[in-house]
């Protein structure tokens, strides 16, 4: 039953119930159209929402669940091993597998996965026990590698650089706000890891760029 029988602003009983639709978006989980019930007072032209909290919360939970499954599937498709990730992150064994099967980690778990999805090289930092120096080094390396891989002006062998970049990994569709499926299932190799910012070396890139 709705909580409003009269307008809370002017006490008029000339209120009409109406329905509007809102798009609720969750990063990596996509979006969903939700029906919102609201009242409109024809006397004072004020609108106020009915109790939609449960409906909205249910939609958000569903989208978060999708986000968790999408992220973990994406890691698996790119050759990551969930057990190794659990070990690096010092999570209890099979935590990620449980999250993947039921899609319902805690709110902190969802945030952790989103951060990992945005910055997969954090796994390397975790692997090294969050050592500050190594964290800084990994971050700088990843940034430099990204610049080198995506900068044609830095290299006379432009075609080689162009060929080298074009990562198909972790494509992120900003308009849909979800992960696009990879074209193919990729087996983990050193090259894949490098594309994701793991175990990369700036010196290695420079040597490769100087080769004809």
């Amino acid at each position: 039953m709705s909580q409003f029988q009269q307008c809370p602003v002017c006490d008029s009983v000339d209120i009409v119930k109406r329905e509007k639709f809102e798009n609720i978006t969750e990063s990596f989980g996509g979006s969903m159209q939700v029906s919102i019930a609201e009242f409109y007072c024809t006397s004072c032209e004020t609108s106020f929402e009915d109790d939609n909290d449960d409906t909205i919360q249910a939609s958000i939970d569903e989208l978060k669940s999708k986000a968790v499954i999408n992220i973990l599937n994406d890691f698996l498709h790119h050759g990551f091993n969930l057990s190794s990730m659990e070990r690096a992150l010092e999570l209890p064994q099979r935590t990620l597998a449980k999250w993947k099967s039921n899609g319902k980690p805690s709110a902190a778990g969802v945030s952790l996965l989103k951060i990992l999805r945005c910055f997969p090289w954090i796994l390397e930092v975790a692997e090294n026990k969050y050592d500050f120096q190594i964290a800084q080094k990994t971050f700088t390396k990843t940034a430099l590698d990204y610049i080198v891989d995506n900068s044609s002006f830095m290299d006379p062998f432009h075609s080689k650089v162009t060929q080298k970049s074009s990562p198909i990994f972790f494509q992120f569709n900003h308009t849909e706000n979800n992960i696009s499926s990879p074209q193919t299932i990729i087996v983990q190799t050193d090259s894949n890891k490098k594309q994701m910012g793991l175990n990369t070396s700036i010196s290695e890139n420079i040597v490769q760029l100087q080769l004809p």
Partner: protein
Amino acid sequence: MADDHARVWREFTETCRAIAEGKAPINQVIPINTVLTDARKYYKLHTKAELITYIADKGLERVSFFNKKKWEKNPNPDFVLYVYAYTFRSLHIPGYIAIIENKRKNIWLIKSFHPPENNNPNIGSIFPDFKKLKVLK
């Protein structure tokens, strides 16, 4: 009469805290018009309960009084209601909140809750020390 914006803000947040702690009915604070839509859109506060708890838990930082105006759309002009507007920051996002106190009904209306419309600071507001150099007028 001295401006009572500090009292209004204090009593408003106290009401929000009472609601968050279950000591007051949730209908004592009513977001109207597009407040909840804007809270969802700009601040990831999806429900009315989340919005009220967020205010109660001092989620609005660096709250600063902006202005006080008579509510022009007041349906009952004999009983004057004032809109108190404040600016705030929420981590990295600036914000603007406007509230109305209705003492007769003992309720609060949240009229606006969104980023400030003129969210384009000039260099003087970002670097206040520049003003002292009189480089900027």
